[in-house]
């Protein structure tokens, strides 16, 4: 039987590594979107409050 343990490890490292990296990318993107959405909401609340004071 051929000794191919190193290639077996490398193969699964690539497969699981790429899948893990993509999941991490999705998680980080989701966090970034949440932050931006929250800051936008805060900004719009502040501007509407300022508008009320001006009135």
């Amino acid at each position, binding site marked *: 039987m051929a000794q191919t343990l190193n290639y*077996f490890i490398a193969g*699964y490292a690539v*497969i699981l590594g790429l899948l893990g990296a993509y999941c991490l990318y999705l998680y980080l993107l989701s966090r970034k979107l949440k932050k931006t959405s929250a800051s936008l909401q805060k900004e719009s609340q502040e501007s509407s409050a300022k508008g009320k004071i001006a009135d």
Partner: protein
Amino acid sequence: MSSKNKLLALLSVLAFLLVLFAFIRMLFFTPVEQTMGLVQKVFYFHMSAAWVGMLAFLAAAVFGLLYLSRKDLKWDTLTAASVEVGLLFTVICIISGMIWARPIWNTWWTWDPRLTTVTIMAFTYIAFILLRRGVDNPTRRARFSAVYAVIGFISVPLTFFSARLLRTIHPVVFGGGEADMNLNAQMLTTLFISLGAFTVLYAVLLLHRARLMAQQEELNQKLAADDGSYDWGE
């Protein structure tokens, strides 16, 4: 948490458990192939990645057709998400195949019909992602993506049948006649479990990516209304 998000979270856990189960079964409960040794076990996830890649491109073509007939941007989001996820699995398939080929064919790469067609397929969809980014108008982008996904799908059957119709050194698992891989029952069971696990994983990644793309688009529109623009760092 809405019921949709709960369902997606449950599906994500299920996908993780299925992939873990397939991995454990491949590692401990599937015999080692006598000639190739341990590297043959890369094949279970390699073939699953190839299957899911092609399935994702098929789904992208179907979503594209749905967009063209209904003009609803949600189908465009699903088309783009499916291409991105499909490309991830195709890249996994190509790299894991190269690692398998090194000890078995004594080379990392050869311009065999199957390897050539899969490369053409991957570049077709890399071009899809790059060209899509160049179109700003959402409706024009959606129409372009839908037509591209339908036409680009030609590369998928070309890849699938290349190993069956042309002279190739690439093994054929099903429908290859004499060139069949002759897997035993345990190996076949592991292969089918891996195929199922990767299919569920594809569905989960597709739904997550589509949800994020929709959120991104919504925020972009808000920012455009505020006369601002945002670099998502992609």
